[in-house]
């Protein structure tokens, strides 16, 4: 029981990170029907931006307050990653709009290869680790030598994720921007006829997706304390798995899928074998899709002749 609660806490933390990345996949898929393969690498680049912003603040400027430093790092990472993803969309995906379905996919795979190798060349191939931050923890349960703990870092991940998801939810459901976005998702031509600037809306979708990926990247860096150029692929694939699991195109689905994948992964590592945790996550994906092809919350695809 103790172990279960502990793994639940760890799983939700990991799942929040996956959920934040998954939103980027699901939004882009919803609006232009494209699998943005480079999204995992955008997440990795954002973690590097966070790392460097953090180093600038601590070693050059010498900020004392960790909370303030984290806040600034988060803002910088979100802003710069958003700019990067805007550029990627303009360069690699916009010229292919309306082209056949595989072209943007291949372009995205090329972008993904480019980004991870760019970081390898620019920042070096070795793992970068930062000193541990916020190292305290609460002891929730203490029974028979096994303590269930909730660390400050986990609280930070939960709080930041919850706050940003709330902001994001507000943007999508209450603002003109979100309305334009949902309109483009349903029918681009009709939205354009009604005066929605489709290209701009798609750009903003990429920008929001990147900003959320940057939150995930910063949290990942702070939580694990280490990042390397190759760390984009696996979280990226798992987040995509989460998006598909939740029903691709569905925003709450992405978050639920992310949490599920995070939980499956940590529970599997605790009770079965840590080596096969990724196999478990991917098998769940295959099983869910075979029995429920539209995902948990997705709309079933109706095929018209």
């Amino acid at each position, binding site marked *: 029981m103790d172990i279960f609660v502990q793994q639940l806490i760890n799983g939700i933390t990991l799942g929040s990170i996956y959920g934040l990345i998954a939103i980027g996949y699901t939004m882009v898929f919803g609006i232009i029907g494209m699998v943005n393969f480079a999204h995992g690498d955008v997440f990795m680049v954002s973690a590097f931006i966070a790392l460097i912003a953090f180093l600038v603040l601590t070693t050059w400027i010498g900020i004392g307050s960790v909370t303030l430093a984290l806040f600034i790092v988060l803002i910088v990472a979100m802003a710069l990653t958003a700019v990067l993803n805007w550029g990627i969309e303009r360069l690699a995906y916009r010229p292919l709009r309306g082209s056949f379905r595989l072209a943007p996919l291949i372009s995205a*795979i090329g972008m993904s290869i480019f980004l991870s190798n760019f970081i390898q060349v620019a920042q070096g191939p070795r793992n970068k680790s930062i000193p541990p931050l916020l190292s305290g923890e609460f002891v929730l349960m203490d029974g028979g030598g096994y303590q269930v703990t909730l660390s400050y870092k986990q609280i930070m991940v939960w709080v930041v994720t919850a706050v940003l998801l709330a902001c994001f939810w507000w943007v999508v459901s209450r603002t003109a921007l979100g309305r334009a976005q949902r309109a483009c998702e349903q029918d681009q031509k009709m939205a354009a006829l009604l005066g929605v600037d489709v290209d701009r809306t798609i750009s903003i979708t990429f920008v929001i997706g990147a900003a959320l990926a940057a939150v995930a990247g910063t949290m990942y860096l702070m939580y694990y304390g280490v990042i390397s150029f190759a760390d984009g692929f696996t979280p990226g694939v798992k987040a995509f798995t989460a998006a598909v699991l939740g029903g691709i195109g569905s925003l709450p689905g992405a978050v639920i899928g992310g949490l599920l994948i995070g939980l499956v992964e940590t529970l599997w590592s605790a009770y079965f074998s840590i080596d096969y945790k990724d196999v478990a996550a991917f098998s769940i994906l295959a099983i869910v899709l075979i029995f429920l092809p539209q995902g948990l919350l997705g709309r079933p695809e109706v095929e018209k002749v």
Partner: protein
Amino acid sequence: MALRAARDAAIWGGVALAVFVPLIGLQAVQDIRGELRLDTRWPLLVVLVAMVVGGSLVNSLLIAPWRERRGRRVPHENAALARAAAAFGRWFPPFAVGFVIVFPFLALWLTGMQGSVKWIDNFGIQILIYVMLGFGLNIVVGLAGLLDLGYVAFYAVGAYAYALLAKEFGFSFFTLLPLAGILAAFWGIILGFPVLRLRGDYLAIVTLAFGEIIRLVLINWVPVTNGYAGISGIPRPTFFGIPFNASDEGFAAVFGLEFSPIYRGIFLYYIILALALLTAFVTVRLRRLPIGRAWEALREDEIACRSLGIDTTTTKLTAFAIGAMFGGFAGSFFAARQGFISPESFTFMESATIVAIVVLGGMGSQIGVAVAAVAMIGGTELLRELDVLKEVFGREFDPTQYRMLLFGFAMVLIMIWKPRGLISSRAPSVFLKERKAVAGSLVKEGHG
């Protein structure tokens, strides 16, 4: 227009500045105590931002107007040009096959015994492996229209099947080659079965997941696969029982030649060439059989296909199985050539490279796949050779570092330039009276 160009250049300069200041201008370096500190590289930053601004100006002042002019031009029938293109289309394949057959001797003649190892092994064999993989995947993606992002799984099955069976039981390469193909085809059916109901990107992601699962099993099933360490000392193929080594029974000694590793290289080159040509030939013949026509019908319209009484289950499964079989052949050749395999060789990157070759070449076009493999694999291998760049950028400049960087960028640029792939016409398998090339843009990409 100049104003617009200047505005675009300013925007791109701003984007480049925002991204490059932290990632290029600053570098997180580990010092001796293992702590991170920051180094600055402002001159490099200035050069790169200037390059981005220059690139944007060139694009909006030269390339974009040129593309627009070309797009506006009314396509007119130029009989001479059309005839030339048709003649090229007819004569290029036999010429290309002839060239690859004489290539090892050409390399020997031009660069000598020592120099040609590089050309035959690094270039010839490496490119032909990818040509073969491209042909194999072309059956699944190009003909049947099923997007398979886990093709590397079958390559891995073939490689491990050969490595384990050859080491444990001592079977020869040519006995195991068909066996590895059958095993891979079997896995193609096993992995194909659950995804029969899936379509489009769901199919892509599940095949990707299967590819990753196979790789993770290879990593973790240590008693059989030896995990990350991989399998070494895999027996090499022999020339009718004559090994390629420096001993008295070796190939060179038996034929009275001076020992050189080049003989094995040439032998392996012809094996993979034969395998690639076999794949191409089988594909061409299969397209004319009912099953090949069913694949293409499935790609064009699955519902119409089902309405006409085609069994989509067997059609999809045969596509997966035959595609996987050729992947298995290529895998066992890879294991025999390297003598060492590890899960590192079967990452998603490989699947992505093969899919990229198929799509960049123009899906369904054999020549396109071969041209794309030569361009992408040969091009990146060529970067290893560019010592000239060292003279320009200084001693520490290592062009090989930039191989994959340029590979990724080239994928993006080729897609923007030619979204339907390099070869834009297809040969129809059924025609009325006269065989005419079909424009690639008329060919559907499939639902799966």
